[in-house]
């Protein structure tokens, strides 16, 4: 079970600042789709519009034909979101936190227990299951964030900078997990790590100053000079200020 994303002419303004400018893209079901770009390119803005946290100024995003502007709750039911710098409740244990998220997702009883068990097993959280999130390392917290995003087995998984702060082993493990979802889930991966996008994504979209600068498949990237060359060619500089948000 996976989901299709269709974004059409999505724009987002904050006063005079344009965070997204007429962005259109499609993500096919079962695809691992990467979203890269410099700081302030609009990646997180797009994700927040997709997840229904913010409203688009213009345009719309649809998930399996369901408009996030008009029916965000149906969209939210079909996605799991692990945001950058995981927003977790430090005073909860891992188990309690997953139970809480499961409750929000409509899971209960045996179904909830099973889902928690699977998430914990998939993310390797068994050793820290009963520990308070506040005392966990960054790596484990990232895993908890992913675990809660996958708890209800959503067709679409949205992850924003999942490997920031992780050690190399953890990064490899996480990439393996995300790659493993290919085909059964759609994954929208937002990342600064070009090699990471190159390694696991089927397609990559490059955003720059709110616009879609380029979009390429993994084969095209490998056939060309690589993602870094593409980035430099289309963006042309290494840093850019974030629009005011």
């Amino acid at each position, binding site marked *: 079970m996976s989901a299709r994303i269709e974004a059409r002419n999505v724009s*987002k303004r904050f006063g*005079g600042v344009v965070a997204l400018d007429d962005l259109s893209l499609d993500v096919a079901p079962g695809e691992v789709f990467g979203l890269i770009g410099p700081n302030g390119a609009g990646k997180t803005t797009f994700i927040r519009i997709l997840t229904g946290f913010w409203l688009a100024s213009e345009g719309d995003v649809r998930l399996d034909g369901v408009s996030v502007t008009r029916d965000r709750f149906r969209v939210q039911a079909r996605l799991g979101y692990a945001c950058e710098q995981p927003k977790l409740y430090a005073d909860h244990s891992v188990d309690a936190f997953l139970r809480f998220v499961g409750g929000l997702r409509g899971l209960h009883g045996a179904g909830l227990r099973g889902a928690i068990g699977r998430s914990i097993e998939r993310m390797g959280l068994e050793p820290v299951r009963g520990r308070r999130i506040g005392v966990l390392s960054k790596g484990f917290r990232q895993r908890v964030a992913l675990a809660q995003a996958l708890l209800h087995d959503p067709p679409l998984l949205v992850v924003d900078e999942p490997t920031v702060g992780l050690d190399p082993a953890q990064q490899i493990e996480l990439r393996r997990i995300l790659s493993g979802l290919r085909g059964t889930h759609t994954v929208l991966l937002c990342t600064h790590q070009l090699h990471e996008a190159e390694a696991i994504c089927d397609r990559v979209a490059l955003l720059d100053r709110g616009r879609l600068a380029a979009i390429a498949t993994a084969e095209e990237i490998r056939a060309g000079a690589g993602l870094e060359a593409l980035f430099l060619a289309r963006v042309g500089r290494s840093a850019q200020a974030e629009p005011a948000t």
Partner: protein
Amino acid sequence: MSLLPAAGLVMILVGVASHYATRSLQGFSAFPAANVALGIALVLVGAAARARAFRGFSGAASRRVALRALAIFAAGAIAAIGLGVASRSWTARLDLTVDRLYTLSDQTRSLCAELDRSGAVAIELVFFEDALLAKDARLLVAAYGAACPRVSIRDASRSEPPAGARALYTTTATTVIACRGGVCDPVGYPSERNITAALLRLSSERSPRVFFLIGHGEVDLASESDGGYSGLAALLRDQGFDVRALVGPAAAEGPAGADVLIAAAPERDLLPEEIALLDRWLESGGRMLVLAEPGLRSNLYSDLLLRWGFDLEDGVIVDAAASPLLENPSPLNLLVHLFAPYHPVSRTLSRRTMVLMPTTRPVALARKPQPDDRLERIAFATERARVDHDLTRALAGRSPARSDAAIGEPAVAAAGSYPRGGTGAAGEASAAEARIVVIGDRDFASNRLIGALYNRDLLLNAARWLASDESRIALTDKAWTPNQDPLTLQQTVAYFYFLAFALPEALLLLGIYAWWRQRA
């Protein structure tokens, strides 16, 4: 949120708090006012700055969402305000007091229904919202407004009492005054019994009959000189009493037709049959007001009143404490300012509502006729007062500084209530209560002094109490908490440890345990 509105709110808070903290010292002052004004200004400036910084919504969808949210809030606010306004007239309530203190009795409801059926002129209860007892009385007064169609409630403040009730507003304890057609009744303590009694009095088609005993050297009711008492009769008539003279109680009618009999300082003995007639009349529930005076001798004082529990030993009260306040100070001129705070005759009077009594005879209490009778001293001289039995010496101002008869706070007035069986109109036995008020001075009611200070209030209170007929509706004041036992020392200490320490300690330990578990 910017700094300015937060600072402004803090200033408003300080302004309001400082006003509350100091208003008893100096009312409304500049410091709180300045804080509140400046605080409001800062809040407005901050809000304006924020409004200017607002760049508008980011799109049509945002605008729709924002406007819908604000519209829902506005609709909710209007609905809440509308409900609040509409519900002000709702009277549905649950009275959960043990004795249903704020639920009107069946007798009161019957009286209200009777008033409604008869189409009687409406009675207005003037309720002083800022009176001392207002908070306690509001619930009860509101019950009258809800249950009695012919009774309306009018809110008033002590700074501007309504015209008709102004004269009756005497102390800050005055809470309710009942008025009908320009005639007002002070009610007294705002209990159901007193309010209903006032309604009864005002709605009564018959004015209470006051008979003055005449023929034994009593005061001259016809005289309009300073020493006369025409003002006394006029005052009672103005207050709705039917004033008549009873030329000797042995006359055919006797006192039986009287609601109140006033014996205004008789100077001679009554006939034995007159004493017997009065005695029988009192036994059947009669009501009598007696004015005495030093030097007067009559068997009314020595026989009748003594039998009913009043000892009017001859003498005059000498009180140096009252003198400095008068223009012509004399220790014989009493400025009476000590009153029994809870008796119906005296409870509207206080230290600020004094009564002037020149040459006053002490009214002491003797043995009460029956165990259930209640005798109470209702007005007193100060603790420095004493009684001089040598009138000549006292009137000449030669009372000794110390006296063996010094008794401290001698009473200048007393009242008695006597539950008795009586006979109803159809000859059936009925419960009745005899009442007597004895005041040790007659001059305070003379034309010269009746308008002085609060002299007329004492007199009217006595007349009203004597004329009131709560027994008709058989309402008793509802019992308050019956158990008034004080705590023992051990209980006090135990309560303190439990309330102030043990319970908070338990909570704190629970918190520490929860915190430790969290960290573990």
